[in-house]
């Protein structure tokens, strides 16, 4: 197998077409053309953990588990980029970061996926995410019992608070000196970035309406860090950061994971998790270099994000588990939650030029923490915006219905556009779900069908936010105000965690109730989503899961065959060519 890789890399260094992480080395993300040594594992001998997906959940977990001494192989269907040399300043070119494999969307409010929803690369969606790094409001972890909606998490917010702090340190989050909402948190490791014009407008609006605002805590550097350079305010964040300022999993957790002995396999699409007759999983079937392969593993972690995770579990159905793996509750794929992402746009007389800097430099979480005056459950935050030209043109066309001269003329106002966009909580509903379609993709795997409809509560929340943001824009004398009412962002749910096997898919440790050596560790495990962007919480859960796995291993409570980390370390077989 290794020889085949060697042949493949020798042919070309196109990360989209030939795997890069082979031959005992992986791309050095900090040096153009550079490499770092990488341990490799035999397929025939079980590794402690095979992890499917290297994004916010999988990448973080791979790093932590490797650092705790477990043998880890992490698979990603996407390419392994070196941002400095592979990323162009170009919206079209950078669509190569997105998961654009075929998917069917339906329901009353079909989701727009692609660029807006998931990534396909080592580092996952964090390679092109907008870097907004928020903590959950503590009450959200008990939203059913404390706020009367959704479902309770089996986690305690105090514990999460310390994991949040760990992640904020690990990513050198640049945030305000003091955060205006929620219980105290340690100071962000790096200082907040300067505001751009769009953020300034948000701030003015908030002050006019008498609510608090702050600089958005962002996972992009405001000062150098090792070989990573600080943000240059180029504004291409959601098309990939060629500066390496963005603290994506690709430039944070993954290099750490490799240094700690994990192996990353890029362009490796996992198609099925194998279940043995014992009822335990024994490894993963994956497609790389033009053929299907099998990696044996003592534990499998699925971390493919809220569509690919249930898809893989459903596609792995066997005679014993005809409804898919970990699905005795029937909940795999259900309770998909996106977040509402509606916007109010307007025109300022001043030049805004919101293309400069990260798109959301200022935020208000007022309506996440204030419950009075709401006719809906849940909360929302709203942030300043900085769409690049293609995205903006398509917004004017798609959401405002402009074309012809009216579109061309409206586009000439690009530099005066100001906008506010929410990240709003949507309630879990079983009818919003991921199922399998009969059609198949390029690997011959059944493609997912994603059904989504807003409920009344979702609509009331959106309504509230749009009215409020309109006032905020009016307060800064914006003219030509209009509403974009159909956008959504982020994907969560579909394998929710809980404290009861009948009403959840995994327990608090992200371990599936049905198969003790099958774990799910990504955005899928969220029982509710809150009105805050999810990645910080996904990473905090991954850190917690790693700690729990280490504790379980020490107590001998991992499934038979799972070795204790300290013992296993010595028995790892490293293969270098």
């Amino acid at each position: 197998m290794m020889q085949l890789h060697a042949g493949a890399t020798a042919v070309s260094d196109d990360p989209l077409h030939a795997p890069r992480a082979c031959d005992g080395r992986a791309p050095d993300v900090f040096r153009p053309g550079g490499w770092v040594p990488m341990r490799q594992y035999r397929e025939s001998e079980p590794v402690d953990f095979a992890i499917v997906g290297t994004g916010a959940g999988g990448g973080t977990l791979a790093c932590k588990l490797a650092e705790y001494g477990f043998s880890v192989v992490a698979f990603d269907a996407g390419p392994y980029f070196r941002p400095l040399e592979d990323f162009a300043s170009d919206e079209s070119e950078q669509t190569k970061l997105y998961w654009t494999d075929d998917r069917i969307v339906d329901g009353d409010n079909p989701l727009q996926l692609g660029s807006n929803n998931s990534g396909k690369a080592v580092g996952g969606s964090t390679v092109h995410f907008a870097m907004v790094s928020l903590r959950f409001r503590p009450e959200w972890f008990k939203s059913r019992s404390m706020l009367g909606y959704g479902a309770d998490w089996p986690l305690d917010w105090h514990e999460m608070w310390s994991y949040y702090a760990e992640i904020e340190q690990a990513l050198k989050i640049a945030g305000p000196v003091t955060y205006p909402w929620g219980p105290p948190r340690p100071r962000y490791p790096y200082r907040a970035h300067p505001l751009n014009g769009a953020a300034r407008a948000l701030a003015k609006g908030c002050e006019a309406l008498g609510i608090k605002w702050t600089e958005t805590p962002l996972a992009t550097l405001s000062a150098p860090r090792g070989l990573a350079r600080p943000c240059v305010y180029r504004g291409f964040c959601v098309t990939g950061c060629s500066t390496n300022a963005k603290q994506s999993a690709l430039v944070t957790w993954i290099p750490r994971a490799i240094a700690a002995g994990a192996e990353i396999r890029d362009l490796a699409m996992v198609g099925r998790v194998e279940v043995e007759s014992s009822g335990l999983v024994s490894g993963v079937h994956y497609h790389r270099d033009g053929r299907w392969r099998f990696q044996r593993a003592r534990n499998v972690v699925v971390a493919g994000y809220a569509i690919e995770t249930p898809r893989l579990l459903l596609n792995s159905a066997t005679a014993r588990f005809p409804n898919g793996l970990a699905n005795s509750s029937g909940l795999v794929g259900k309770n998909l939650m996106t977040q509402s992402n509606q916007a109010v746009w307007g025109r300022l007389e001043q030049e805004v030029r919101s293309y400069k800097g990260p798109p959301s430099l200022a935020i208000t979480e007022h309506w996440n923490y204030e419950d009075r005056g709401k006719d809906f459950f849940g909360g929302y935050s709203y942030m300043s915006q900085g769409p690049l030209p293609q995205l903006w043109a398509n917004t004017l066309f798609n959401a405002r219905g402009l074309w012809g001269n009216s579109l061309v003329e409206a586009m000439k106002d690009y530099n005066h556009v100001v906008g506010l966009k929410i990240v709003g909580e949507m309630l879990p509903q079983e009818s919003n779900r991921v199922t399998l379609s009969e059609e198949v993709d390029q690997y011959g795997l059944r493609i997912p069908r994603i059904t989504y409809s807003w409920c009344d509560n979702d609509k009331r929340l959106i309504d509230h936010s749009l009215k409020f943001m309109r006032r905020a824009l009016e307060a800064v004398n914006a003219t030509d105000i209009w509403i974009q009412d159909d956008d959504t962002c982020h994907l969560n749910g579909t394998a929710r965690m809980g404290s009861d096997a009948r009403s959840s898919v995994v327990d608090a440790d992200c371990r599936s109730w049905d198969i003790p050596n099958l774990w799910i560790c990504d955005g899928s495990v969220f029982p509710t989503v809150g009105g805050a962007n999810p990645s910080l919480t996904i990473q905090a859960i991954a850190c917690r899961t790693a700690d729990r796995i280490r504790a379980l291993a020490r107590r001998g409570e991992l499934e038979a065959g799972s070795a204790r980390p300290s013992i296993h370390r010595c028995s790892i077989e490293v293969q270098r060519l």
Partner: protein
Amino acid sequence: MHERRDRYPGYDVLAKWSGPSWNDKTRDVITRRLSIAPEPRFFTRDEYETVVAIADRIVPQPAVRPPVPIAALVDRKLAEQIMDGFRRPGVPRDGEAWRRGLKALNAESAAAYDKRFAELPEALQDKLLRAAQSGELKAAEWGGLRCEVFFKHRLGRDIVLAYYAHPTAWSEIGWGGPASPRGYVRLDLDERDPWEAAEAKDGNDATARRSNRGVR
């Protein structure tokens, strides 16, 4: 041709080509884009002609400069199978959706005016497109593809994205363009770096033009 005044007179984002705002990767990508010849590879000649006509209505271009080859840009995207990755039930994959939509649009045009879409006068083309936008076209050729879905999620989307992927369009709207390694320094309201487009204010073209000539 109706008068369309330059908001950013003399600004050409390509003047920054060899400056610190562009890196090699970006230059490669844009070189490839600028070298796309206005002829079909994915579409048939007939289809291509229809796309050209549609693109002219969705994003009309001034006659005073070389046009952005929108149809060719869309064509290459489809030829390279760069897809959105999501579609509604009954909607075929991107390339197939285009083929079917174009066929249906020409069928509508033939039924109503006895002409191909590309041969219609602009006003009638607009009328047909508006009918597609509002879901009024029902010819059998549409099959399971609803005309308003095709218009919004395929036809218009691809054309708009193609046009605004072109440096000519970037210059037209005064966007700073590619920006790596150099990004921006002056971020606040009414602030502009010397390497950004200056807007003509109150009909005062000369000042803006002078600044824009200095953009590197």
